């Protein structure tokens, strides 16, 4: 870890993620409208809302898989601009887990995990493999290290994807609907891994429809609709006493 990042970590007042007045358009379509969100270090945020509300687009702006047209996004004090160097710097510190895992099918699980530490962090292969084994242990699939992703179940693949992101030792983890593409039986094992991760103090932003997970883990829940944040609230308050009409409607539809 470089001196510079240590210094930044020392400055406790720098938020993990700071989004101020962000707007984004897809062509003519105004997908994100005036997004303001500050995430403190170690905070767990769950983002929910109907499909098409811009949840995924918003968290994809945090590691610049999407760019934005107005406002600003700073990750760990680093302002995201078009500067490729800064984008790479931020991506090294932000892990991401996708709905469709996006594992590399031509590499083994072990190679998937060690690729970025070796090539991006310039870590010796031996050290990268030790770290990979540690995280495979943590997501409870150490025995699958030499298989290819195609040989694993969906739940196992998603846990490999989580381990792959953790191998980069990120400061922030983004989850983009991590359980939406899984069979119902496998949702639980992935959520369990995420709960353990949350308990370890990781800063997390999770887009999900799993309200049980939100209730159990989230510090704050963000409700989005039509590209806007309508409500930010603590879980107990959010479920028991939603402020916004749209939130009430949404909750009545997904909680039975």
């Amino acid at each position, binding site marked *: 870890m470089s001196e510079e990042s240590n210094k930044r970590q020392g400055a406790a007042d720098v938020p993990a993620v700071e989004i101020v007045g962000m707007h984004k358009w897809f062509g003519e379509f105004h997908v994100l409208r005036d997004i303001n969100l500050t995430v403190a270090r170690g905070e767990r945020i769950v983002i929910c809302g109907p499909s098409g509300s811009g949840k995924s687009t918003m968290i994809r702006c945090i590691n610049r898989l999407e760019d934005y047209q107005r406002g600003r996004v700073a990750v760990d004090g680093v302002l995201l601009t078009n500067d490729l160097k800064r984008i790479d710097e931020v991506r090294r510190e932000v892990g991401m887990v996708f709905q469709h*895992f*996006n594992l590399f099918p031509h590499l083994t699980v072990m190679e998937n995990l060690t690729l970025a530490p070796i090539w991006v962090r310039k870590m010796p292969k031996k050290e990268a493999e030790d770290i990979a084994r540690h995280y495979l242990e943590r997501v409870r699939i150490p025995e699958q290290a030499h298989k290819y992703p195609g040989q694993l179940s969906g739940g196992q693949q998603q846990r490999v994807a989580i381990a792959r*992101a953790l191998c*980069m030792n990120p400061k922030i983890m983004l989850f983009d609907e991590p359980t939406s593409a899984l069979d119902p039986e496998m949702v639980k094992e992935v959520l369990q891994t995420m709960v353990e991760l949350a308990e370890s103090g990781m800063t997390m932003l999770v887009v999900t429809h799993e309200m049980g997970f939100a209730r159990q883990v989230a510090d704050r829940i963000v409700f989005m609709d039509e590209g806007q944040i309508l409500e930010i609230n603590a879980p107990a308050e959010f479920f028991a006493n939603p402020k916004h009409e749209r939130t009430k409607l949404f909750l009545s539809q997904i909680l039975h």
Partner: protein
Amino acid sequence: MGAQAFVRSETIPAMPPPAREHGLAGWLREHLFSGPLNIALTLLSVLFLWWLVPTLLNFLIFDATWTGDDRAACIVTAERPRVGACWPFVFERINFFIYGFYPANERWRVDTFFVLLAIGIVWLLASWAPGKRAAALYFFVVLPVLSVMLLLGFAPLRLSYVPTSLWGGILVTVVVSAVGIVFSLPLGVILALGRRSSMPAVRLFSIVFIEFVRGVPLITVLFMASVMLPLFVPEEWSPDKLLRALIGVALFAAAYMAEVVRAGLQAIPRGQYEGAQALGLSYWQMMGLIILPQALRITIPNIVNSNIALFKDTTLVFIVGIFDFLRTIEAARIDPKWATPVTSTTGYAFAAIFYFLCCWMMSRYAKSVERRLATGHRR
């Protein structure tokens, strides 16, 4: 309802399938005689083979002449009304077909080159051969240097200089094809990436190059390389005639290869790019480690297909005065010593067999790769 629920208490043992659905009879029924159209096609095919195969075998083997010293052995006489292929002609001129005008006592150098090339191809392509990284180093670095030293000459090893104007036959065909195939792939990859680049200048150059080269025949490219280039460049700067043709063929093949590779790149889902980007990989790391290995793997059958086409297109170098394999046969078949009605046919049959074997081996390789990809877990 509940009282009638059916619950099986034992597993039924597996039974063999009905006899008419497997075995020889089942296979014949399913593949050759499954309906009126299929029966008609089967009969037509049998009739066609009935007509073709005996004619071919008679000409190539049963009526063929196998020994002799000149045309007398292969002409029609009263005792021999039907004459097939005149193989002594091919046997006598085989060295010319293989080496062209390469000096006779230096031909071992060409043989060594063929052996080195064969080792490289097998080492690089056979799935059971170990050390692919070393194989690539050998094939793309060591082999080209060795080949130039061997074929062209290298004074320190007392290999005398053999100008390319003396090269010919299978040697030239193999050299032109190998250079075209080996250089077209990396050039094609670069052009394909350029065409998908977000930088307008790079993209424009790639598109113009690809579309221009694809828009003109190979003959035009070869003419440009061999006739036009010397007009613009002073004589002493102008490279060797064969080298000019090699560059022309490589650039021509690269444009086609670029489109093949681009199709492969397009087949890689966006998630792979995003997965790589999210880990902080740079553009070249993402392409080199994640995207290209997958894209090239699924493109191998198409790459081989392009290479088969290129292999046969190399015969066109004869129009700029290079003695490739087909040209040596053209030159030999009008030799008065072997002037018989079957000499030309024999020469062309020999050429056909050579080209067929080479192309067939390439397509077998593509097929085996396809099978490996279909069953393999690497996708």
